[in-house]
């Protein structure tokens, strides 16, 4: 469940985001579309509590992010929000399993090796559990990044341009995996992309390029 109300975000007096009202139902999946510079990443950062909006209220999984202090916000993010980056950044000094276990450790949750094994198996990575990121292919690394994002069974899964560097076949595979994993955790999935190829796969779309996004209320 995601709710935005009266969101305005500015960088140096320039309004980059203006969303009067937006709601995504629990467990729903949708896209945030827009050219680069349209505010997709900013929106994702607002939802993840990485940024605080200039004005307005962000509610994620029933929690008003603006009401949380710094450390509490970090902890909330770790426990309830999964993030997948375009760069699928893994910690290269740690093995795949250790990368996964960083998620519960940093969020202050129990050290759940079983969960790590299960997630890796579901992403067809069981045999890579003790490999270092440098030994993995791009596709495998992407899957490890997804695995880490869902380790703590987040209520909201946010992916920033997960397909931009992939060919058509791979893009479809990654979107399928994200959908699958989001369903497995019953998480609300939001994918920010400028990749129009994937547009038709999701009926729910928030298009930041369209003028009406700024004025209309929207929910799915």
């Amino acid at each position: 469940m995601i709710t935005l109300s009266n969101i305005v975000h500015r960088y140096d007096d320039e309004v980059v985001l203006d969303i009067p009202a937006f709601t995504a139902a629990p467990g729903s999946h949708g896209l945030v579309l827009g050219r680069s510079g349209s505010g997709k990443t900013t929106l994702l950062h607002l939802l993840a509590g990485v940024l605080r909006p200039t004005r307005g209220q962000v509610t994620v999984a029933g929690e008003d992010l603006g009401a949380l202090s710094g450390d509490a916000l970090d902890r909330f993010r770790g426990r309830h929000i999964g993030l997948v980056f375009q760069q699928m950044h893994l910690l290269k000094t740690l093995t795949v399993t250790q990368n996964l276990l960083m998620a519960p450790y940093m969020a202050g949750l129990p050290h759940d090796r079983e969960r790590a094994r299960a997630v890796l198996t579901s992403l067809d990575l069981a045999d890579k559990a003790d490999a270092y990121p440098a030994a993995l292919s791009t596709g495998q690394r992407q899957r490890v990044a997804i695995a880490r994002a869902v380790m703590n069974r987040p209520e909201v899964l946010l992916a920033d341009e997960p397909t931009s560097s992939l060919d058509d076949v791979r893009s479809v595979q990654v979107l399928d995996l994200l959908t699958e994993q989001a369903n497995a955790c019953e998480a609300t999935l939001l994918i920010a992309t400028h990749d129009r190829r994937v547009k038709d796969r999701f009926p729910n779309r928030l298009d930041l390029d369209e003028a009406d996004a700024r004025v209309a209320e929207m929910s799915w």
Partner: protein
Amino acid sequence: MNLIRLTLSYVRQRPLQAALNVVMLALGIATIVVLLLFSSQARDNLEATAQGIDAVVGAKGSPLQLILSSVYHMDVPTGNISVQEARQIQAHPLVASSIPLALGDSYRGFRIVGTTSQYPQHYDAALAAGAWWDATYEVTVGHRVAREHNLSVGDSVITAHGLTGGHLHEDRPLSVVGIMEETGTVVDRLLLTSVETVWAVHGQYEEDGHEDHDHEDHGDEEGNDEGEHAHSEQGDAHAHDDDDAAASGEAGGRAPASGGPATPPGQQGAPGPGGMRLPGSPGGGTAVGALATDREYTALLIGYSSPIAAATFPRFVNRETDMMAASPAFETARMFELLGVGFEVLQAFGFILILAATLGIFIALYNAMQDRQYDLAVMRTLGASRSTLTRHVLLEGLLFAVAGLVLGLALGHLATGLLAVTVDQAQDMNLTAWAWAPRQTWLVGLALAVGAVSALLPAVQAYRTDLAFTLARE
């Protein structure tokens, strides 16, 4: 996962850089550990040895030399004092106790000390076997001497003239009547006997006609090797010779024992006051009349009867007599002042190494933070707070510091241990690696401070990582 494993994983990524920083820190700490162990033990040992000795009275010369030779048995004596003069000192109202010492001979590098039973009592030396010396030519041996030369009661030892091994008094063996227990003091490396024995060992040459044995041959060595002739300070001619110095032949001297009839000790006996030739007879043109080694002490160890004596007694001795009084406390303090310069230079070297290590760790962490900004941001997205990241970086600095500290302490104690078993002087002061100098505790604090200080700025960097900016950058 935990923070330590995470931190170690980064350290493992650059093993050589990490090793360099740790080794540099360890060397700095080891240098200081050796200095601390050495200086604290040296000081303790010197102070313990001089405990209860308020002053030493001996022949005029260097006060430090007098202390070193008579209290620590490390240097050669300044000369001798006559028994008559010594009596005058012993009778002084400010003198509560006085222990006479007669030095001059050695057994394989260990000194023979002619003294009274007061001397071992002063150091609380107890017998491990046998008895204290009683008759002339009897000797009671210190623990280390007995151990190193495997001596036991009933053995006889051939002493050498001089402190560093001159010719042997082969015709005058001393018989070991007792072995002392280990005391941890200077007594462990001494052979104790009566003053009369020391006199007799030398005096007997006059009668055997070997009196001239080495003084002509060695005369020119005396400057270099004074230890041989502590009791002939005043002139070239040896005291033994006062009545027939003129007759000194060159030849006979070298092998005194070969022909000399080994007169039984009993016969030779302790020289009673009248038993020996007196120095009175003005002998063949040699120096001063007071050359009678057989009636001389090397020094008196003095205990004062009143604290006032510290101010007045040395002045009295130095002004009114031909002797000199020196204070062990004062002289050892002076010696440490001299040594202190060397210690400070070495210590500064140690601190420079530690400073360089601090800088090295700082640079390593600072660069690491540049490389790891994105990693830090990812950790934040996984729920790590700013303070967790700060702790992660501080932990890395402390990890280096603790590794350097542990290695440094180990190296320092190891080096001290090696010093203790390989260097004779270190053995003389009972140097041990199994000790903890009080100031070493400061090193623990210092090392932790090195870790914290070098990690401080990188930790602040980590704390300030702008999450949104870093994530959006790539």
